[in-house]
């Protein structure tokens, strides 16, 4: 079952690359994305009762993998639908050629494949290979437009993330060494086996390994202070790819840290990892806050929001306990939905206004009623306004902080969130309202509007209640992380 999920995006990528007709490429892309969504449902449901192994024990799926995989598949599906319209318009205005389009779809589906591989790899080194794979494939997508800025962003991205991830590999070597000392002879790199022997692993060795893992995957997840690549890459990539980068890639890397935390916690106790996570979480939030206020480019603004939200997610894990982790995991889903929505709507804005400067954009709501309204709603949501979904997960994390008496965390969290709320209202308010400088052109596309409205409904509904299926996945995932 897992094999099919992994095979479909690869086949789709190959087909997209070999076909030379624009319509055919687009249909293959859509067909592949829908097929992937369909095929991934049975294994996701199956893991609710028991984990699945595949390919010996190299691939493994439990509720946590399923949860992330569900998000990856969902965001990939909407991105595939949205890409047809967005890249279609780029072709229409002569910015890219059919050859570029083939490359785009082939790389996009390969990118989805590498992200899916991160969710199902049991072997820590296979996870590493998959994460490095995501860097390589997405760097080509970041440099897609071949402009000076795009090449610069891609170069920074690939160099910083590869250096970071090199340290993560050293961390994996050290963990392997620790397992060799426990098991003798051949050690293990399988997460399931490491978890079973975790309480016998040498704590100081595991602490050292965790530092390297945190630096490595933390670079890729966008933790401050090694976040410099992120605003560049997210702002230069084609908009649908920005949604994938921000919505799910950061989380895939974050899950690598989580999987490691599960092992390290059994060896060293919870305090060590949770302090580090709290520190990097709050630092990321703080640095993002400063840059959000000063931003003049809305795509970079959204990128800094990603840093803020990965900070919130890390803070939730750092607070720990059932509800801290629950809030974090829920926030992963909520942020994926809202950030994708924001990138899609601002993508429409960019296509219409031909600029990513905030000051050049005025009166989006007049010019594009659907996209403009949803952009403003999503901006309110990302700032943590009730009744949207981000508010719910942030509230759960804050509640956990209060319950466990982490008052400093609580105070800093609220201060940052309040400042960011002001910044978001200021920036997006000036974009949404006012009188547009340019005249209204063609109407908004029907498919795009439909996708936007459906996602906005999800954003709204998940702010009011959590569907039973999602709740089950979340509960099982939290149990895996905190180990009950």
């Amino acid at each position, binding site marked *: 079952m897992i094999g099919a999920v992994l095979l479909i995006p690869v086949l789709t990528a190959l087909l997209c690359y070999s076909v030379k007709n624009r319509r055919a490429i687009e249909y293959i892309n859509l067909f592949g994305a829908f097929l992937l969504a369909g095929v991934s449902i049975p294994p996701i449901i199956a893991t609710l009762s028991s984990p699945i192994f595949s390919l010996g024990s190299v691939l493994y799926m439990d509720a946590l993998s399923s949860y992330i995989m569900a998000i990856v598949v969902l965001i990939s599906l909407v991105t595939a639908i949205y890409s047809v319209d967005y890249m279609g318009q780029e072709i229409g205005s002569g910015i890219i050629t059919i050859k570029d389009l083939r490359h785009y779809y082939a790389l996009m589906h390969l990118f989805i494949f590498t992200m899916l591989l991160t969710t199902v790899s049991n072997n820590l080194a296979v996870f590493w290979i998959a994460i490095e794979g995501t860097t390589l494939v997405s760097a080509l997508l970041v440099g897609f437009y071949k402009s*000076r800025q795009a090449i610069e962003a891609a170069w920074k991205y690939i160099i910083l993330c590869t250096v970071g991830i090199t340290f993560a*590999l050293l961390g994996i*070597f050290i963990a392997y060494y620790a397992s060799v000392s426990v098991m003798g002879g051949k050690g293990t790199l399988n997460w399931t086996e490491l978890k079973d022997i975790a309480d016998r692993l040498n704590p100081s060795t595991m602490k050292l390994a965790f530092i390297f893992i945190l630096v490595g995957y933390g670079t890729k997840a966008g933790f401050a202070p090694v976040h410099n690549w992120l605003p560049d890459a997210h702002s230069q990539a084609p908009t649908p790819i920005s949604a994938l980068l921000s919505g799910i890639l950061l989380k895939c890397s974050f899950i690598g840290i989580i999987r490691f935390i599960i092992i390290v916690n059994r060896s060293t106790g919870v305090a060590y990892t949770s302090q580090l996570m709290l520190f990097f979480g709050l630092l990321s939030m703080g640095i993002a806050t400063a840059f959000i206020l000063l931003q003049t480019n809305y795509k970079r603004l959204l990128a800094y929001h990603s840093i803020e939200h990965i900070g919130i997610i890390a803070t939730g894990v750092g607070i720990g306990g059932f509800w801290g982790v629950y809030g974090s995991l829920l926030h992963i889903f909520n942020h994926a939905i809202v950030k994708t929505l924001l990138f899609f709507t601002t993508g429409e804005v960019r296509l219409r206004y031909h600029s990513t400067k905030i000051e050049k954009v005025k009166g989006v709501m007049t010019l594009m009623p659907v996209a403009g309204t949803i952009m403003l709603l999503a901006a309110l949501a990302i700032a943590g306004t009730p009744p949207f979904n981000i508010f719910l997960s942030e509230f759960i994390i804050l509640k956990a902080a209060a319950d466990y008496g982490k008052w400093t965390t609580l105070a800093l969290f609220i201060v940052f969130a309040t400042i960011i709320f002001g910044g978001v209202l200021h920036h997006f308010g000036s974009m949404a309202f006012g009188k547009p400088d340019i005249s209204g052109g063609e109407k908004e596309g029907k498919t795009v509007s439909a996708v936007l409205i459906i996602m906005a409904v999800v954003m709204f509904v998940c702010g009011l209640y959590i569907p039973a299926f999602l709740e089950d996945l979340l509960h099982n995932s939290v149990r895996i992380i905190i180990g009950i």
Partner: protein
Amino acid sequence: MKSWIQVFSIIDLISVGILLTAIVMNALTRLESYVRVYTFNSWLLSSLIAIVAFMIGETHLYIASVTTLLSKGIVIPLFLKKIVRQMKVTHDIEPYISNTLSLAISGILVAVVYTSLREGIFITGVSKNVLQISVAVILIGLFIMITRRKAITQVIGLLFMENGLFLAGFSLTYGMPIIIELGVLFDMLMGVIILGIFSVQIKRAFTSADLDKLTTLKG
């Protein structure tokens, strides 16, 4: 022959060679010599793995040695040479700091690594020095990346880091299972190719291969 290896401490000899090839980079001024030093470094790494494979009689280490030689010792250097020729860059490196200072800092890096890892939390079995040397090589690679301004020098710094990393993994546990090493090597090869493509594009878009022109994105 096994006793010969021990008598002449060949393993220590080769790993010191690996460290020296990394340090020598600080004094070089031309891109071609960087590629040559990297090639030599990879050959030393490969022969070190082969000798340990012979000592402990592990088949998978022989395979690791051969794949290292093929990929890092032959394919990647040839590709880098091609890129250097294709870019027609001025071949001088023009580092941000003088070579003397650069050498001195590398020396300090090695000393710091040796003092901080003196306790030897990891007993390697092969040699007491290999882990320290590998960490030193990783740091020197990083240092070269920071202080040199050509795109290719960053790639070579990164490759030195990976060589150091392989050495570290090898000294900790006699290397990973062979499938994993092949996967990591594959990623590395792809990475070098993609970085090569981008450095050609940098040269084309910025009409220079210097990375200090890459300052359009800020804040």
